[in-house]
């Protein structure tokens, strides 16, 4: 589990922000972070490229699986003929060594695998994690104990080894991308989500409006769906946003190890594994998928962090929205709803010791002056930030 993920486990804990007005506020806060905005644009482009892969390759006039033996030098190990791996009007990013398959087509189709598998895995992780977490949080002592121990077992499982073992025993008839997504989600991600959701559920459970719902005789199911889920949305979205890049890396790693999606379906991880020996003779073969993977994971991580910050009420003070507007915004939307002091305090403590990779690193190291109050209500935080800036 990356540090960033641990960090968000406690992020956005003041979830009392009403969902409807929260959406508008979320966008404003996200827009205020330039890096997150750029990342969002990059991610949107990547998704668009993945969706439009057949269109783009049709535009280029190529497809990802056709061999072009005439474009490679068979006597020299199959290195692409021409400069920069055979880049030209017909093959925008050149061709693959040994096969002559079009690199551009393979890259954009590879984006489908990377994004599809990772988004699918994230969805499954969120669904399982929320279900397990809410059930543990709302269930009685025994349900909680059993579910929490199951979660612990999955947390302690080594992802790569488990995935390799599982992928080796599943019959080859099973659709491979679905299988990879399922295995990534089952083996990792959901368990930490479940822990976070459980903690959050326990905190929300004692709030007046939830208590009211339970006391008025609504079923646990209805309470969970109507009262808890809106409150869980912010931390879960935050968490999911950071799971996506982790899942992309996991898919690439599995493909790199030869147990991911099957050829001829292109995947970035698989391209990397074939390309590693070619780094001197045909560097673009290695660089292109590596760059695509890096760009995607980086953009997803920055965006995920932006989402985290935007959903974190305490982070509002750190955003460069402008003091005046920020105060207005806060007055208008932030409904102070003090959580139980104890939970808040522990969560703050956790957050403060976790180093954060992004721009708020410095802020996180500053202990909150008044831990048991919602921190964005403390004007001091804002002024401190401005002094540093």
């Amino acid at each position: 589990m990356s540090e960033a993920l641990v960090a968000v486990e406690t992020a956005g804990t003041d979830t009392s922000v009403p969902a409807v007005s929260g959406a508008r506020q979320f966008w404003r806060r996200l827009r205020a972070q330039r890096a997150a905005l750029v990342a969002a644009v990059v991610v949107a482009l990547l998704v668009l490229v993945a969706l439009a892969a057949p269109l783009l390759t049709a535009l280029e006039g190529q497809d990802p699986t056709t061999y072009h033996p005439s474009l490679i030098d068979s006597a020299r190990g199959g290195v692409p003929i021409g400069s920069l791996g055979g880049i030209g009007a017909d093959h925008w990013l050149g061709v693959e060594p040994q096969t002559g398959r079009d690199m551009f087509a393979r890259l954009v189709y590879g984006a489908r695998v990377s994004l599809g598998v990772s988004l699918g895995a994230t969805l499954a992780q969120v669904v399982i994690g929320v279900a397990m977490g809410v059930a543990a949080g709302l269930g009685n002592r025994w349900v909680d104990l059993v579910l929490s121990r199951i979660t612990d077992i999955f947390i302690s499982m080594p992802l790569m080894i488990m995935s390799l073992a599982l992928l080796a025993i599943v019959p080859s008839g099973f659709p491979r991308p679905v299988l990879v997504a399922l295995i990534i989600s089952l083996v990792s991600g959901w368990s930490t989500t479940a822990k976070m959701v459980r903690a959050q559920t326990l905190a929300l459970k004692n709030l007046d409006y939830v208590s009211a719902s339970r006391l008025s005789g609504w079923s646990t199911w209805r309470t969970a769906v109507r009262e808890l889920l809106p409150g869980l949305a912010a931390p879960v979205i935050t968490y999911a946003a950071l799971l996506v890049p982790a899942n992309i890396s996991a898919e690439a790693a599995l493909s790199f190890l030869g147990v991911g999606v099957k050829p001829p379906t292109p995947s970035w991880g698989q391209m990397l594994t074939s390309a590693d020996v070619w780094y001197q003779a045909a560097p673009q073969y290695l660089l292109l998928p590596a760059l695509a993977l890096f760009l995607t994971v980086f953009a997803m991580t920055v965006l995920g962090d932006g989402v985290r910050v935007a959903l974190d009420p305490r982070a509002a003070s750190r955003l460069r929205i402008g003091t005046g507007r920020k105060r207005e915004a806060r007055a208008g939307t932030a409904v102070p709803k003090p959580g139980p002091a104890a939970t808040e305090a522990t969560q703050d403590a956790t957050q403060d010791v976790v180093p954060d990779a992004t721009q708020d690193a410095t802020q996180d190291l500053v202990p909150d002056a008044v831990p048991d109050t919602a921190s964005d209500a403390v004007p001091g935080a804002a002024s401190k930030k401005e002094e540093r800036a």
Partner: protein
Amino acid sequence: MRQPSVIARRVAAASVSLVVAAGAAACGPEDSDAKGSGGDSAPHKGGTLTVLNSEPQTDFDPARLYTSGGGNVPSLVFRTLTTRNRENGAAGAEVVPDLATDTGRANKDATVWTYTLKKGLTYEDGTPITSADVKYGIERSFAPELSGGAPYLRDWLVGAADYQGPYKDKKGLSAIETPDARTIVFHLNKPEGEFPYLATQTQFTPVPKSKDTGTKYESHPISSGPYKVVKNENDGEHVVLERNTHWSPATDAERKAYPDTIDVRSGLDSSVINQRLSASQGADAAAVTTDTNLGPAELAKVTGDKELAARVGTGRFGYTNYIAFNPTVKPFDNPKVRQAISYAIDRSSVVNAAGGSALAEPATTFLPNQKSFGYTPYDPFPAGKSGNPAKAEELLKQAGFKNGLTITLTHSNDKNFETSPEIATALQDALKKAGITVKLQGLEDNDYRDKIHSVKTEPGFFLAHWGADWPSGGPFLAPIFDGRQIVKDGANFNTGLLNDKSVNGEIDAINKLTDLDAAAKRWGALDQKIGEKALVVPLFHPVYKRLVGSDVKNVVISDWTGVLDISQVSVK
């Protein structure tokens, strides 16, 4: 009856750079002077030759080594009754006398073989080599604790099937007679005209009974060759050989032994070996490798550099990569389907996937394209350079598959340029043009090998490869096509499950021949006859390209092993 080729098995396990003929089986070779330098004066005597290898020289005991032709490094220490001719190309695939005065004298039906030792042969301590020592060396290889060699001796010698070696059974093998100190006679239970090839293996090395230390013998085997072992660390990972002063070049026409010291360092990554050889710095300038080929990417780099290109040696080891059918699995029971697939194969894309035209040659025959195997060119289902999908579709229609066909191709997930996903994908692409949809079933390598070599689990359509223990048609064809070698429980190599009386009979008839040239011609004819049954689709024969250090001279690469022969190399 088992006749698996250790080379075939080990190659399957080899990694990216096609580490061929691992360790002991590292073969020995003859030469292709790739240096092209010409005008070499007499080779320089002395110096240290470094060998950079991936596979260690494990179990460095003549009883335990599984070699083709006595191995490369082992052959520096162990002399055998016969050995490989240390010449370039086809001449190097011939068997020549070593300790013996000739390659063996057979009785009429090739069941009794007699050898006479040369005069003046001694061990590294100066004591004479006797025929009883050769007999003792063979007997020890039957001891369970010294297993590892090829199974031929147990299969061929009269009454040897249950022999447990000289430690348990002091009486010894009655199938081997030593009427005097220089004569040794072998009694076989069936005609084996190729016995001289077998006599090149290290089990035919003399071992003095008084010096035998059982399983500890491998740390210091008594040398009969030009070098003796002075250091052996980590079970063959680092072996240092120095000159054996009691070796007499007058009795050894094959080994040149120019350097004073051979320093064998193993356990290296193949890319590291090629990197060090291309840099050729310090001691690496006088370095060679006996088990690491250039991969396609490395070749692309090397061929762009004149200096490096001049240091590449090219060799061919008799080897075939092919598609195997299991005719008991539908639809491969229909010969028309097998023929259709044969026609649809695009050998140029397969060759590219295997590393390109410099590292693989398209194959239409099961026998390797070398004279000693009896290579007879034929192409029963001509697919041309890139396949004949129209003909394939026509055959499929006749077979009743009007709307195409969907089949599963089983392969290994290892990146080995042989049975890899890359080869499978290239085939998939080619068959698509003939309306054949190929689903790929990639298995973990051990799983893959277990499955294809068990009659019970053998898939219908899979990638396979075969290399022989010596360069002849016998060990190449018999294990794959002799119906009596179908193994119901255990490792089966007759994957086409062919049990044809006329084929079995011809194999027996050729084994009676002691004229190896005549035998080769008949192996070639038999290969063609079997080929027409379309039980396999030959894909390509690999070509080995290997770098040598910049100070290495006298590179000799034979068709027997395809790699340079250490015994011929000199260093500046």
